[in-house]
């Protein structure tokens, strides 16, 4: 279970919420409302006041690299540092698992050995998803995972997320697609000045935090 307590991100009021295993929390709000900053703070990529607990352990009690192996941030525009996609995976990567993930994302195995620059935006986005899922993190912080994808690829990615939920992962999803949110989210967190209570599973507390 992921518990966020009084987390101070950007201009937002302190945020408190919980997401259980196999649950998906969608984070909504207009551009610039701090959705990405919230995900980055949870992954400890930005310094933020407040607490983030994974199964009772606060992030500062755990070394940052270990924390990020469990609580994984997936950027909307993933970065690449080596020549081919394969170079971005550990040398001792489980080949069978890699094949299955590529297949589930609709990526040809041949793409692994092409220069990353030659992959399309959508292929790179899905390759980054595979790269981040290969070592089985417990919490997935997904920043617009399907925004740059065509409908068919987006459906594959949604299916992949659903599969991760079945496997007991915690998912935080930033998305601008209401249909995707409806399909995946069990709870909703609304950021920004909008006061309307979020329809469906969650509601907004007066201090800006969400409850079920």
């Amino acid at each position, binding site marked *: 279970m992921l518990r966020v307590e009084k987390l101070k991100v950007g201009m937002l009021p302190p945020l408190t919420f919980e997401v259980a295993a196999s649950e998906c929390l969608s984070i909504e709000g207009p551009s610039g409302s701090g959705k990405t900053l919230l995900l980055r703070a949870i*992954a*400890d*990529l*930005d*310094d933020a006041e407040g607490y983030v607990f994974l199964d009772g352990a606060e992030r*500062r009690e755990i*070394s*940052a*690299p*270990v924390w*990020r*192996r469990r609580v*994984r*941030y*997936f*950027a909307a*525009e*993933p*970065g*690449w*540092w080596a020549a081919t996609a394969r170079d971005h995976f550990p040398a001792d990567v489980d080949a069978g698992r890699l094949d299955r993930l590529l297949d589930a994302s609709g990526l040809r195995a041949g793409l692994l050995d092409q220069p990353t620059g030659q992959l399309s935006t959508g292929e790179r986005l899905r390759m*980054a998803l595979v*790269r*981040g899922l290969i*070592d089985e993190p417990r919490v997935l912080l997904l920043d617009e995972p399907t925004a740059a994808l065509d409908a068919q690829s987006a459906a594959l990615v949604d299916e992949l997320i659903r599969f991760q939920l079945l496997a007991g992962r915690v998912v935080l999803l930033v998305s601008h697609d209401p249909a995707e949110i409806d399909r995946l989210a069990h709870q909703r967190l609304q950021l920004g000045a909008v006061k309307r209570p979020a329809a469906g599973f969650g509601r907004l507390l007066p201090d800006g935090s969400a409850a079920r």
Partner: protein
Amino acid sequence: MNYVPLSWIDLAAAAVLIVFNGMLSWVLRLGLERSIALATVRMVVQLGAVGFVLKFIFEQTSPLLTAAMALVMVAVAGHEVLARQEARVGGWTAYGIGTGTLFFVGLVATLYSMTVIIGPEPWYAPRYVLPILGMVLGNTLTGISLVFNTITQAARRDRAAIEARLALGETRFGATSSVVVHGVKTGLMPILNAMAATGIVMLPGMMTGQILAGIDPVEAAKYQIMIMFVIAASTALGVILAAIGGAWLITDARHRLRVAALGLT
């Protein structure tokens, strides 16, 4: 030694030449008269002062005085590293890393040159220590400035890649390794180029000085070769230490890229 000492009148005759620069500026309306005058006065005062200070220190042959002068040189060189940064990251910490690296490299290189290579009597003879330290510092500081500049620029450009590696659970040094390698390569470029081109286009300053002072050119070349080895090794050591320091500087204890310090927010 059969060198021709310069009299004050000789110097005055040379100073006439700078007047030519002033006239050129006046005739072509370059407006550089003030700068030329200021630069001339600074050059004369600084070199003159250094001449007298060194003469004083050489006459004393005091280890304490030599060490004090060496420390002043290191401090000024450390300041110069920062002055050459296009965007300063880290402030005093950066000064500390730069100066600490220069201190360590200068100490190791000078001690090795004095005790193992040259072996003057006494080993701390300032006539050998200070010029060699000066050449080591001058070249190492060029390397270190390049490393710092390259690392901060590359970190800005490759932010997404560095943060992707951090998000995948790499440490601050793992995630910045490509930036560090880039910095080390750039920092070593000037000394490698200098070694490859030396003697063909221009005689190195030290060798020229020794030849003018009446030393056999072959002996002067031997000295220059020795100095090149010392400088190359010092620069390599300094560049690597500074690159590790630079990676440390652009990240924090929680293995985060310091985006605010890099001016990325």
